[in-house]
Structures are given as structure tokens and as C-alpha cells.
């Protein structure tokens, strides 16, 4: 496969300007003749559809929820980064760019990241104009806070609900376009297949989740903004319905998939408490502004806490190990997520973990409450504290929170060039669904920035460069053999799944026949394998084990899963099943990618490659590239093409937060 990243000529700071000045545009009269499909209504999808609709294109947008306002971007808590330098603390486009490249452990593309930093300020302007109620100071101007991996305060926030407010802003803009008729909304619809005609993306097959009908949609271009694949681990901070299938079907139709092994594990989540648990709840990174993370210095104390004989408040100050402040004095509790997660795991593995399972550390606000007063802390973090109390039934104003790392975000995704176009012409990917900006680790408050940057300020330009030629092809028809075949393959796949076990098949315990299990049974089992062997620490041995176990489990799944009901009705079990079937295939690719990357970088930690004090050890000589994988059919090994990362502007260094 040939990869052309299409990075414009010129110095880094002028690339985007040069690109915009010389790109092709579609004239207003012709825009009306162009159809675009957008899959997903999160920050990237909603902002792209709203902007493209406002420009005059005909847009069809799809979401699996009952309303576009429910996409999982809504759950982002802490904030959105922008290089506004309103605090006069030394921020700039250049610094945001550098922090993001360094945060990503030098595995992201310079030109894309620079553009992201460049448009970050305009995002905040746009959101304020839409009525996003960002936090303000007493003078009425916008307030900021700090996030991990930065030494400036550049994070804008709306209490602990920043994602919600930004999404409602984009949803408002989208709703306006729907009312104007430029965008047509298809809620409770799921993309099942990409239709490729003569090598170009020309439409999708969508399943109406209420009736089960398969519907055809044709267009001149398709944007996939369907989020990440973190739910492959079953327990994650993602929403229950978040899934990787839309991106995965694109991959199977020829779009390269980049860096699948880069998975972000968020350090501050509420720990796992039982095997019935369905998801993990994130406690915002913003809490690390004022919260201090610690475990007891003495193992005996940790053991006593685990047995319930001691509480955190029984441990005197000098018996506490503030291990992040100890190991990383320069950044302290605000080290990037991958660093904080590994440090927590290290302490727990060494026997200092707290909580009933020993898999938790403390996040303590006692100092902040003493320094700022309870009122100020409540104003800043009130809703997070309330959320914690509802789940754990412990008052975080009186006792420190207990937290542990959990799967949160996937940096890997569909490979895209500078224009956010995949290797299939006419297929674009935006937001978490693409791989482009975060390298091997995403900094906090950068996901919202990237989603909105892609949707508001990148795609509306770059897509026109592709669409300028498309005015000659006329309306795309959905009555072609390619659509017939795509629809037929989806129908067959659903029927195959439903046929594995019939309603009459015996339940597991009493069966002489092969046992039967629910979809969740298999999903939980897959999640356990992935977390145990392809999680925070990986090595050749664990990955080999994972490969074998996933193959076995997948085989069981295709013989033993029982899906009640039919394909012609509202049937959530069937939805879960086809998404899980895709996860099995994706799991193999994640493992293959993790196996091939013989280095540690960002969220990808290979225990064979670490420094003496347990930090990641990159191998820039051999692995300073993006790994783009190509699909060759079910069960066939995928082939990898490397896109070298040429750092022309930035000086490569060891990532150091000490």
C-alpha cells in the first residue's frame, strides 16, 4: 500500500495557510448538488455536519442513539485546550503544539498537530458565540485551569460538564441546519457497511434499529466520526453503545487502520467492585489540579486498610507516599495520563494498593479544602464529588477518593492524510475514529479540541478539495450492484449470527450439545483477556497468550452465542452481537500491532523496553513511524506499511516530566 500524507509544502507555521490558499473549492450553486454522509453525532460529526450544511451541501447524518445530543462526547468532563494565552502565562500555538507532540511521545505527525494548535483558539470563539456557558471569573472573562502534560493554564471548562456543553453547542448548530433542511437526521440508525464504487466511497448501508430494516444511502463522500474502540476491553469509561464497528467495516473495505495498539488508560477512575459491573466511571483529570495522589508508605498500613482495620485518615502525613510528587517533582500530580496510570499500577503491584481489592490509590483533597475552603472546592468540582458519592457511598469531602486506571480513549484509528481522508478516496474520518493527532498518548482536554477542530475547521475546507471534481459525476444512485451486494452481505451476516443457537436450543447447564451463552458473557471474557494481557503492560509472552485466547474465544462465540429475537425488530442483543463480532477481529489487529512495536511509547508499554526506573524506552531508530495496517480477508494476516514521521521542526528528546 502506498501512503501519501499530502503534507503541504512550506514552513510548519505556514502549511495550513498555504493549503487553504491553494485548495480547490466548490461554488455555492454546485454545493447544492453534492451529497455527504456523516456517521456519528459527537463533537466531530455534529460540528462537521453543521458546518457542511451551513456551506450549502446536502448532508445526511446518522446516530445510534435516540437523539444526536447523546453521543459520548457528552461525557467529557474536564475541559478543552486552546492556545489563547488569556492567562498571560507563556502559552502560544507553538507551545501547545510542542506539548501535544511531547505528550504523544513523538509519535504524531507534526503538520497535523500544528494545525490543531493553530485552530484551537477559533474553537473557543465559536463555542462562546453558540452560547456555551464556559466558566468565568468575577470580571466576566473566561477562566482556565491546568491539565496533565502542561505547565500553563489553557483548559477552558464548563464546570465538570464541558463535553456536554460543547456537544449541546454543536447540537444546536446541527439542529438549526436540520430545521433549514440542509441536514437530514437519521436517529437510531447504525452504519453496517460502506459501499465502494470504482474505488471511491459512495454510500453506506444503515440499519434502522427500531424496525431492523436495512436502508441504502448514496453520496459523493462519507465522513466516519463514530468514535473509538475502547469498549473492546468491556470495562471502560466509554458509553455502553460506543463501538468500533463503523470504522472497522471501512477497514475491511480497504481503509488502512493505524496504530491500533495505542490505547489510553486513564489514571483516575472509580475502581472495579464486582463481576456484574458494566462500566467504569471516570473522575475528571481536572481533579489532579487540587487533589494529591498517595498510598501508604508502609505495607502494613496498606494491608490494614485492605482488611478494613484502618482508614485513610488514620495514616499520618509523614507515613504517606505522594508517589507522583516524589517521582516527578516538576509536573507532580499533573503528569500525563499514561505516566500516572503506570505509576499507580506500580505501587499496587508492589503491595501498597488500598481498597478491598488492593487495586486503588487515594486522591486526596484535604489540603485543597484547607487551603481554599470547602465552598471553593465544591464550586469547582461539586458535580464530580456528588457523582463519586452516589456510586461509592463515601463522602469525598471527608475521606479521600479511591481511584484506579481504566481504559478511556483510543489514539489509534483509521489512517488519514493531512486532509483527513482515508486510503479510500471519498472516505474521511474525524475525531476519535481517526488516528491523526495524539501520537501514542493523548493529553487531557485535547479530545474535545481535536473533534471540534476536525469538524468545524478542517473538513469543511479539505473535503471541498476532493468534492470539487465530483460536481461532474451527478447524483449517485443506490440502485447499483455494489449496493445490492453490500446489503446482501449485511443481511447474511446478521442471519449467520442469529442461526448460531435457536430459541429452542437448550440452556447451558442441561445441554448435551454445545453450551450456549449470552453476548455479554463473551464480551466480558474478551475484555478480561485484553485487560490482562494487552492492557497497561505488554510483552511477547502476554501478547502470544492473548492471541491464542482470543482465537479460542472467538471460535466459541461463533458456535455458542445465543441471540434472542429476529433481525426485523428492535433487538439490542443482536446489536451487541454484531459489534462484538467486529471486536474479535479488531482484537487480533491490536495484538499484532502491539507485538510488532518492539518499543515502549506513550500508552504502549512493553515491559522488555523500559529504563531502570520503569519509564518508557522508545526506539526512534526503528519505530519512529505510523503503522498502517491493510486488511486482506478474514483470517489472513494483515500487512503493515510504515509512514515515517519526519520531525523537521521539533527536536526529538527523551520524554521527561521529572
Amino acid at each position, binding site marked *: 500500500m502506498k501512503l501519501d500524507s499530502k503534507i503541504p509544502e512550506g514552513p510548519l507555521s505556514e502549511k495550513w495557510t498555504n493549503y487553504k490558499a491553494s485548495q480547490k473549492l466548490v461554488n455555492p450553486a454546485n454545493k447544492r448538488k453534492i451529497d455527504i454522509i456523516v456517521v456519528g453525532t459527537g463533537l466531530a460529526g455534529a460540528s462537521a455536519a453543521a458546518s457542511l450544511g451551513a456551506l450549502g451541501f446536502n448532508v445526511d447524518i446518522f446516530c445510534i442513539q435516540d437523539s444526536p445530543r447523546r453521543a459520548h462526547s457528552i461525557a467529557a468532563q474536564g475541559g478543552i485546550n486552546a492556545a489563547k494565552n488569556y492567562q498571560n502565562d507563556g502559552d502560544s500555538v507553538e507551545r501547545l503544539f510542542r506539548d501535544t507532540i511531547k505528550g504523544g511521545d513523538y509519535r504524531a505527525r507534526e503538520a497535523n498537530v500544528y494545525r490543531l494548535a493553530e485552530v484551537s483558539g477559533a474553537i473557543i470563539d465559536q*463555542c462562546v*458565540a453558540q452560547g456555551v456557558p464556559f466558566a468565568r471569573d468575577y470580571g466576566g472573562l473566561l477562566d482556565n485551569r491546568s491539565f496533565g502534560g502542561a505547565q500553563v493554564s489553557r483548559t477552558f471548562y464548563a464546570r465538570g460538564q464541558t463535553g456536554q456543553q460543547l456537544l449541546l453547542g454543536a447540537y444546536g448548530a446541527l*439542529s438549526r441546519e436540520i430545521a433549514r433542511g440542509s441536514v437530514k437526521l437519521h436517529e437510531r440508525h447504525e452504519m453496517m457497511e460502506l459501499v465502494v464504487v470504482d474505488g471511491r466511497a459512495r454510500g453506506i448501508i444503515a440499519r434502522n434499529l427500531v424496525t431492523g430494516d436495512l436502508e441504502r444511502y448514496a453520496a459523493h463522500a462519507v465522513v466516519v466520526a463514530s468514535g473509538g474502540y475502547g469498549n473492546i476491553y468491556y470495562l471502560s469509561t466509554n458509553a455502553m453503545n460506543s463501538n468500533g464497528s463503523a470504522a472497522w467495516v471501512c477497514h475491511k473495505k480497504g481503509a488502512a487502520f493505524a496504530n491500533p495498539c495505542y490505547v489510553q488508560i486513564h489514571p483516575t477512575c472509580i475502581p472495579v*467492585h464486582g463481576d*456484574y459491573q458494566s462500566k467504569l466511571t471516570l473522575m475528571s483529570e481536572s481533579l489532579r489540579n487540587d487533589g494529591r495522589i498517595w498510598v501508604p508508605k508502609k505495607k502494613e498500613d496498606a494491608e490494614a486498610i485492605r482488611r478494613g482495620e484502618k482508614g485513610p485518615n488514620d495514616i499520618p502525613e509523614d507515613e504517606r507516599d505522594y508517589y507522583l510528587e516524589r517521582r516527578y517533582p516538576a509536573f507532580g500530580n499533573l503528569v500525563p495520563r499514561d505516566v500516572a496510570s503506570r505509576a499507580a499500577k506500580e505501587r499496587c503491584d508492589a503491595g501498597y494498593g488500598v481498597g478491598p481489592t488492593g487495586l486503588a490509590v487515594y486522591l486526596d483533597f484535604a489540603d485543597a479544602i484547607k487551603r481554599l475552603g470547602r465552598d471553593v472546592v465544591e464550586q469547582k468540582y461539586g458535580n464530580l464529588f456528588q457523582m463519586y458519592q452516589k456510586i461509592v457511598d463515601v463522602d469525598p469531602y471527608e475521606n479521600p477518593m479511591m481511584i484506579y486506571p481504566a481504559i478511556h480513549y483510543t489514539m489509534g484509528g483509521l489512517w488519514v492524510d493531512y486532509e483527513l481522508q482515508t486510503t479510500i478516496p471519498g472516505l474521511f474520518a474525524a475525531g476519535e475514529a481517526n488516528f491523526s493527532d495524539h501520537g501514542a498518548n493523548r493529553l487531557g482536554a485535547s479530545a474535545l479540541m481535536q473533534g471540534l477542530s476536525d469538524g468545524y475547521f478542517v473538513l469543511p475546507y479539505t473535503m471541498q478539495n476532493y468534492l470539487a471534481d465530483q460536481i461532474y459525476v451527478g447524483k449517485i444512485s443506490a440502485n447499483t450492484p455494489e449496493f445490492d451486494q453490500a446489503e446482501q452481505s449485511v443481511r447474511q451476516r446478521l442471519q449467520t449470527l442469529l442461526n448460531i443457537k435457536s430459541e429452542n436450543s437448550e440452556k447451558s447447564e442441561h445441554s448435551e450439545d454445545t453450551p450456549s451463552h449470552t453476548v455479554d458473557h463473551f464480551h466480558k471474557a474478551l475484555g478480561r483477556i485484553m485487560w490482562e494481557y494487552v492492557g497497561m503492560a505488554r510483552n511477547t509472552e502476554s501478547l502470544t497468550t492473548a492471541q491464542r485466547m482470543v482465537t479460542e474465544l472467538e471460535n466459541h462465540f461463533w458456535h455458542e452465542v445465543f441471540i434472542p429475537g429476529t433481525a426485523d425488530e428492535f433487538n439490542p442483543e443482536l446489536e451487541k452481537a454484531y459489534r462484538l463480532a467486529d471486536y474479535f477481529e479488531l482484537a487480533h489487529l491490536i495484538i499484532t500491532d502491539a507485538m510488532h512495536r518492539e518499543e515502549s511509547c506513550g500508552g504502549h508499554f512493553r515491559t522488555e523496553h523500559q529504563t531502570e526506573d520503569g519509564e518508557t524506552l522508545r526506539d526512534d531508530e526503528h519505530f519512529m513511524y505510523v503503522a498502517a495496517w491493510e486488511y486482506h480477508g478474514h483470517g489472513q494476516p494483515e500487512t503493515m506499511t510504515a509512514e515515517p514521521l519526519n520531525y523537521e521542526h521539533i527536536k526529538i528528546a527523551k520524554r521527561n516530566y521529572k
Partner: protein
Amino acid sequence: MKFTLHIWRQENARAKGHFETYEIDNISADCSFLEMLDQLNEKLTNDRIAHPVCFDNDCREGICGMCGLYINGRPHGNDDGITTCQLHMRKFHDGDEIWIEPWRAKPFPVIRDLVVDRTAFDKIIQAGGYISTTTGGVPDANTIPIPKHKADQAMDAAACIGCGACVAACKNASAMLFVGAKVSHLALLPQGKVEAADRVRKMVMKMDELGFGSCTNTYACEAECPKEIKRQNIARLNRQWIGQLFGRDRRD
């Protein structure tokens, strides 16, 4: 813990629904309400008792607004300031009988079991629940200072998650708290003032057209709102409504 569950079952929008009773045992007190239903569904499926109970859910952390069950006569169950996914079984007693119903309101027709169609809310927003900006060409974010207390009030109103509990709680199935929250959020900000009069008129008319009832000031909506949106937002909506009828902003 052990529970007797009476759950509304309805195959589709046209079918006649009824309550079905199921027993469930071995439920941990730390388990969430939806995780309890997950375990029930696991049992119903494994033992081939019935099709799993359908219920909407997504983020399971109280922000997406997807979940919403009417539990023992209260939207989102017997606790304040939470969504159904944030309700934990420790709020119940061992051996309790629990009645579980979908939102009951004419504008929210049942899709299956406990799942309802809330697209009416989207239609109200589409009628004008936004500020008419297009991408680009907007002033710098700090050009217009906004007093902190105004921004805070706007944020209080903007916290609405559009779950529909207010409508379900209201004996008239009125959407006044939902509409009031959006009208307030935008009218409190200088950016939203420009279209405020038009907005309130269009949204209220759309609300009426879609079959939501009138407000008779009993404030069950406020009592049940998972985000504790205040009834003052309804008052503000009424002021805006009167204002657009008689005030200077009147257009036609």
C-alpha cells in the same frame, strides 16, 4: 438482595402492553439499578424465559440522558438529583417489590418495553433552541464579558440532559421545564439575547403542536429533575413569552 420485579412489557408501538412479574436474587447492594436489570436479562436469556427487557441506556454515568425508567411511581427512582443509571440497589430493602414502567406521555410513544421515542424534544430544539451562528466569522471569545452570576445561572439551566423525566413526572405531560431551561440558558447570555423573543415563541408553539400539556404549577418536574433544574426557569420562560407578545421585541 432479593427482589420481585413488575416490569412493563410491550412488543412494539402497536402491541398492547402488560406487566410481567420476575423474581431476582443475589443482587449486590453496590450494584446499580441498570446492572440489576442486566442480570435479570442474563437470566431471562439463559433460561429461555422471555426476550430480554429492552431499556435505553448509554453512558451509565448520568450525563447522556438516554436512560429513564419510572420506578415505583417516580421518574429515575427513589433518590434526588440522579438518573436511573446512578440509582443503586442500596436504596432498596431486601425483598422489595419494584414496579418498573416506561415514561408515560403522549408525545413519547413506546418503542418496545421500557424504551420510548423522545424525538419530540429534538423537534422543539429544531424550532429555535439555538443561537443562529454559522461556523467562523465570530468575535474573540473574550470580547463580551459576561457577569459571573449570569454565566453561572446560564450554566445551571444548560445542565439539562433532555431525559424527559420532567414530562414523565408531570400529570399534564408538560415540557415547560425542558423548554424553560433552554430558553433561560440562551436568554441569559448576551449572545442569545438577539433572538430571544423569536426563540421563545417558536419553541412554545412547537411544544404545543407536539401534544405536550400545559403547566399548572405543581412542580413535580423540579422535584424529579436529575439535574435539579429550577422552576425559576419556567417563570423566566413565561416572562419571555409575555415580553415577546407585548414588548419592544415583538416582530409581527
